[in-house]
């Protein structure tokens, strides 16, 4: 499989994450990205197979998802078990995962192609939950988990038989992952888990959680004291405390969970103890590109839909679309969407060719979050009173889209990363 080999290098213990980043940056020029290779040809990024897969996904969205979205939004949950099984049967949940466990072993360009197609879903909640299942809860397991662990958790997640969730954020720690408080202490052959997790996508329905917890009490560095653990959620001591009510992403169930002396075998720990944060960080590039890619089509469609609405809406004796402020503004917005698309494709091509694209991926995520807010806000304005109602798509997109600047890496975190690459980030204050 192309471009995956560099990710399978054994993890060298870093003295700390920031040192590791500084080391990789020392050989790079500050603002141009960290590779010396020629700009990959993004025109060849997507092949006929990518298009064929998008066609299959489009059919499933049209048959099995969109007809039910309004119902799921109203119920504030979607049937993950049923839908993931359909996606799993079509091979959509393990596109970049190892063939040995039911995946297709393809490169990341396939994930991006499919992510774009998910923009066709009439809400943000369902693609977000699918993204967690296919791209966010399982990369560390796929790369570093033991064979037994992969058989027990990875294979069924790829097949769509188990619903997965990612347990990183806590009530007191969102962006500041290093400050999470959940612990998993060794007791004989078990790990005993205590703590809580917050804002967990699919947390109410999930069968298992990829949990990040503090395991190395003796390690001072907060980036090296944590581990990733496969946690079945039907164990005694796991409490799905509540489904959180949100302003958007209604069809996705978001949970707060508590863990009280939950016991799992120590073998449920993924890879090496203490490496949990590093493992999770390795897939941030993919997570951020996914977030950016998944919104491109939706933005294009809402701009088109707004133009069509404005065309037939009359005001002051002419079609709303004929006011220059309206058609010029929509043109500006579409220009920005195409720019973001180019950046996503460029970063994907570089990543697939084996390069580190942390800076570009962070930029893409930052831009995507802000652009979604800008586009949906401007378009909603042109829908007037109707834009403020539940009867049109733009209002749902406005609500759902607001999360992108917050989740999967807040804008401020993205800005800090870019500043690190620009060497403009101030040194942390001495304690």
């Amino acid at each position, binding site marked *: 499989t192309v471009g995956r080999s560099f990710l399978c290098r054994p993890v060298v213990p870093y003295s700390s994450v920031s040192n590791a980043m500084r080391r990789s940056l020392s050989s790079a020029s500050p603002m141009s990205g960290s590779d010396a290779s020629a700009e990959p040809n993004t025109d060849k990024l997507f092949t006929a197979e990518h298009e064929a897969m998008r066609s299959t996904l489009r059919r499933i969205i049209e048959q099995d998802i969109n007809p039910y979205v309004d119902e799921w939004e109203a119920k504030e949950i979607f049937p993950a078990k049923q839908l993931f099984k359909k996606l799993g049967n079509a*091979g959509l949940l393990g596109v970049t995962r190892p063939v040995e466990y039911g995946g297709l072993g393809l490169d990341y360009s396939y994930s991006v192609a499919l992510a774009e197609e998910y923009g066709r879903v009439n809400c943000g909640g369902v693609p977000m939950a699918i993204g967690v299942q296919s791209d966010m809860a399982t990369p560390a397991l796929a790369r570093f988990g033991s064979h037994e662990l992969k058989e027990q958790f990875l294979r069924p997640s790829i097949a769509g038989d188990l619903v997965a969730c990612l347990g990183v954020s806590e009530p007191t720690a969102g962006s500041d992952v290093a400050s999470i408080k959940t612990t998993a202490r060794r007791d004989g052959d078990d790990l005993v888990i205590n703590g809580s997790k917050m804002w967990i996508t699919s947390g109410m329905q999930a069968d298992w959680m990829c949990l990040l917890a503090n395991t190395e009490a003796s390690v001072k560095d907060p980036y090296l004291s944590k581990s990733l653990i496969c946690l079945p959620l039907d164990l005694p001591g796991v409490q799905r405390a509540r489904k959180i009510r949100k302003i958007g992403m209604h069809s996705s169930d978001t949970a707060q969970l508590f863990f009280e002396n939950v016991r799992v075998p120590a073998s449920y720990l993924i890879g090496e103890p203490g490496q949990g944060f590093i493992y999770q960080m390795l897939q941030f590039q993919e997570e951020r590109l996914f977030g950016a890619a998944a919104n491109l089509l939706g933005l294009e469609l809402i701009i088109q839909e707004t133009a069509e609405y404005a065309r037939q809406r009359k005001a002051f004796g002419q079609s709303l679309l004929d006011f220059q402020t309206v058609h010029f503004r929509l043109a500006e917005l579409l220009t920005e969407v195409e720019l973001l698309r180019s950046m996503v494709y460029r970063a994907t091509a570089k990543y697939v060719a084996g390069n580190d694209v942390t800076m570009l991926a962070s930029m893409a995520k930052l831009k995507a979050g802000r652009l979604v807010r800008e586009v949906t806000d401007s378009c909603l304005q042109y829908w007037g009173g109707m834009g403020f109602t539940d009867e049109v798509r733009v209002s749902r997109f406005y609500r759902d889209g607001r999360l992108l600047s917050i989740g999967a890496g807040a804008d401020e975190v993205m800005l800090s990363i870019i500043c690190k690459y620009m060497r403009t980030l101030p040194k942390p204050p001495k304690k």
Partner: protein
Amino acid sequence: KYIHIINKADMAASKGLKILVGCKRVIDYAVKVRVKPDRSGVVTEGVKHSMNPFDEIAVEEAVRMKEKKLAGEAVAISVGPPQSQETLRTALAMGIDRAIHVEIPLAQLEKLQPIHVSKLLAKVCESEKPDLVILGKQAIDDDCNQTGQMLAALLDWPQATFASKIEPSQDSKQLRVTREVDGGLETIDVSVPAVVTSDLRLNEPRYATLPNIMKAKKKPLAKMSPDQLGVDLQPRQEVISVEDPPVRKAGAKVESVEDLVGKLREKGLVK
């Protein structure tokens, strides 16, 4: 090599039918078709194309017959430009075993008619010797509804068009086909080899799973030219012009039946 003995053999006991399925690459059904400014045809450049929906149904039927062990081998064929290969790959991804592409040069593409396609298919049938040819009943671009019928005539084979069901006959020696006709449903028995054309309610086509899309890359796809098959593509028709249908005018509401009849008389639509 496959030996053509099916006419006399009991279908259930044999290796299964060999099926040839026709697929045409057409403008996607969801596209808003636009007429070219010079009125010589419709805009096809840069427009989304996909497999003719009735052909998808034909492909699905062939794959289902394989799964039911009624068929042993299913071959897809497409007559068209280089991009028809993508259409064939879709068929392969749905479960067809191998594909044949009869490539038509771009210059001759616009003038290609069902008569030419049926002649090309007839030639291929001479060498491939299928037991059953399944075609879509018509293509959604020209709506001709001719190729299947012409092919059967050229081969002197029985035809069963507008099929909504295909199954073995009572004695398993023939095919029992239910046809959708104006008066309702007609059921006929046809001996093989035969030509069947698929109608809408024959089945609901599957979408290709991602693993099958990747597997399709490795399945054989053979290329042929009309010259190799010895078929003359001389056009028999000339398209004079292509125009948009008239824009639908606003209607008018009437209060009573008398008003309605009066209005119809006014327009000279009723004496």
